[in-house]
């Protein structure tokens, strides 16, 4: 176990090598300081391409010894139970299902942790998914999510129970809460994992799209516990219910639930268009620039009783509604039919659509990655195909 550093061997360098090294770094982290001096700055991501591909021996990677933690003292795969005071968010159950698979590898217990002002509302339902232990912090102060109070509870839980891993839903709440816990314990938190696995040595394998989404990164947290991850809703399957057998632990709140923030008002958002529940979706990408273009796609969506969805570039550049965005930074969808129009298929997007049953994609670029994740790929100009397709469907449905 060790962490290393890059060592620059200045004596081996000449201007040609310096230029080569500056150029080879994909992160602009190698700097020519002049007078034959080379430096590495904070842009470095330790990809070590300079060690492997640079002039031999100019930059080397030196392992440094670190003190290994005792991982056997950290047991259990824990899931943060998220609720709105009335209902548990289904992502929590999806995570319990995944936690069971992960815990089976290391024979660890599956743990649920709940903060609430009324445990009776949730206790039975959590146990029905077959967790081994349920830890509850109950107080009138914990009715609504408050990041400071919840972090205080989680701190108490981690110190007392020492779970090996903690999973959070990648919801607005989870994504605000989990980082605070990570910073408190100076431990790793991987956002928006799409695949989780467990090593026999209890290291959690956390895969997520990286660098804007055309690459998958496999991330581990080899020498810190607890190891933590957030996972978006609908990435994992909803598990079947199980025989309740879990032990309930009512935790004593003997610590301060103070807060420097006060909730003044909560309003439900007006009827949100929820593409994550839609059965049929027509998704459009960058080529849909004008209102006329979008109108065509809407017509197709209307004919198919489909929701219209978009890619991130349309949200960022054309101001499309972010709630209709498919992808890692948008919604995860699980429709029966998905029609992608003019979408190239960055992982950022495809991560949100892998649950679609049948995928048709139209794109003019034969090599577009969207075709790798589509059942039916159509290479052609979307604006030539679309009007004809609309006519065809109208004929089939007998619509004028």
């Amino acid at each position, binding site marked *: 176990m060790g962490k290393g*550093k*890059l060592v620059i061997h200045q004596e081996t360098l000449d201007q040609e090598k310096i230029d080569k090294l500056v150029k080879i770094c994909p992160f*602009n982290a190698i*700097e020519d300081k002049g007078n034959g001096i080379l430096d*590495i*700055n*904070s842009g*470095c*991501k*330790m990809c070590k391409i300079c060690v492997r*591909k640079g002039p031999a021996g100019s930059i080397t990677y030196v392992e440094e010894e670190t003190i290994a933690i005792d991982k056997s003292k950290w047991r259990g795969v824990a899931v943060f139970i998220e609720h*709105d005071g009335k209902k548990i968010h289904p992502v929590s159950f999806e995570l319990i299902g995944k936690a069971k698979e992960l815990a089976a590898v290391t024979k660890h217990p599956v743990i649920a942790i709940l903060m609430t002002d009324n445990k009776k509302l949730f206790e039975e339902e959590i146990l029905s998914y077959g967790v081994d232990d349920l830890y509850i912090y109950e107080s009138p102060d914990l009715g609504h999510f408050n*990041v*400071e109070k919840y972090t205080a509870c989680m701190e108490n839980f981690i110190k007392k129970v020492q779970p090996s891993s903690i999973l959070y839903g990648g919801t*607005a*709440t989870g*994504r*605000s*809460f989990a*980082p*605070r*816990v*990570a*910073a*408190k314990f*100076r*431990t*790793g*938190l991987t*956002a*928006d994992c799409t695949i989780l696995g467990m090593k026999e040595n209890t290291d959690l394998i956390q895969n997520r*799209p990286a*660098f*804007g*989404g*055309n*690459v*998958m990164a496999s991330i581990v*947290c080899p020498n*810190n516990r607890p*190891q933590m991850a957030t996972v978006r809703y609908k990435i994992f399957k909803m598990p079947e219910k199980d025989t309740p057998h879990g032990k309930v632990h009512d935790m004593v709140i003997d610590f301060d639930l103070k807060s420097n*923030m006060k909730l*003044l008002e*909560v*309003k*439900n*958002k007006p009827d949100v268009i929820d593409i994550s529940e839609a059965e049929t979706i027509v998704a459009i990408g960058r080529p849909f620039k004008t209102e006329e273009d979008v109108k065509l796609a809407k017509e197709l969506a209307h004919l*198919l009783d489909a929701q219209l969805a978009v890619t991130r570039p349309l949200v*960022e550049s054309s101001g499309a509604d972010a709630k209709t965005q498919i992808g890692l930074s948008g919604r995860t969808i699980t429709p029966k*039919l998905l029609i992608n129009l003019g979408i190239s298929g960055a992982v950022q997007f495809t991560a949100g659509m892998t649950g679609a049953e049948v995928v048709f994609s139209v794109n003019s670029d*034969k090599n577009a990655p969207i*075709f*790798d994740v589509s*059942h*039916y790929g*159509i290479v052609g100009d979307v604006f030539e*195909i679309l009007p*004809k397709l609309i006519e*065809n*469907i109208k004929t089939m449905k007998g619509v004028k």
Partner: protein
Amino acid sequence: MNIVTCIKQVPASSDVEIDPVTGNLIRDGNNTKMNPYDLYAIETALRIKALAGEEETTVSTISMGPNQAVAVLEESLWMGCDNGTLLSDRKFAGADVVATSYALSQGIVSLGKFDLIICGKQTTDGDTAQVGPEIAEHLGIPHVAYVDKIIEVKESSIIVSTSMDKTVEVWEVNFPCLITVDKGIFTPRLPSFKRSREIKKEQIVIKSFADMDDTNEANYGLKGSPTQVERMFPPTKNNEKVLWEGNDLADKIADKMQELKLI
């Protein structure tokens, strides 16, 4: 009032690919821009400055990255911020979220007293949305994420509205605190050419490891990073695919959809 906004230089395009032969990242590192969400953070800071009093309020920007990242600090000054600080040191290299947020929190402390820290909700290259909340925890101050409205700036607190998944919440948070802002909170102003000519060199400072309060190297860079990227790999592909080219494509789609009983 002292406001600090955290900003980052990101690649202009997110088109990074893996060389299928060598497994190396292929990335165009030369085209960069300011993380788009940070423009909203800066605009929010400048609007609050206008509310709280131009004379009594300072807006500082801070960033960590290579020396080229000075460009985004300059841009922030052209937009109207008062000063910029770049954290650049080899000891900060290889930092994950914990180490990045820690270095930034130390950099913020080195600027002196602060009341409000504003971050964009996420970056377009890291995409984690974690750095803001982690900075708040390192500093022991409250935070509100996904702020979409500034409702009132009071003497010792701020009232904001935040957009959660299914609700809109209004929070009053005491200073000092941190907020992360979403797109659309305000329309970011353009950098001013006039201001760009008035900027003085001293308005941008480069700080290194030696300028930090905490000089324990184990808390920074790769050493202070609990996570490790084990490997990078191209996404999995769907092998059972049909690719149609040529003529009558619309007919083929419609026929297949009918065959699958999707129409």
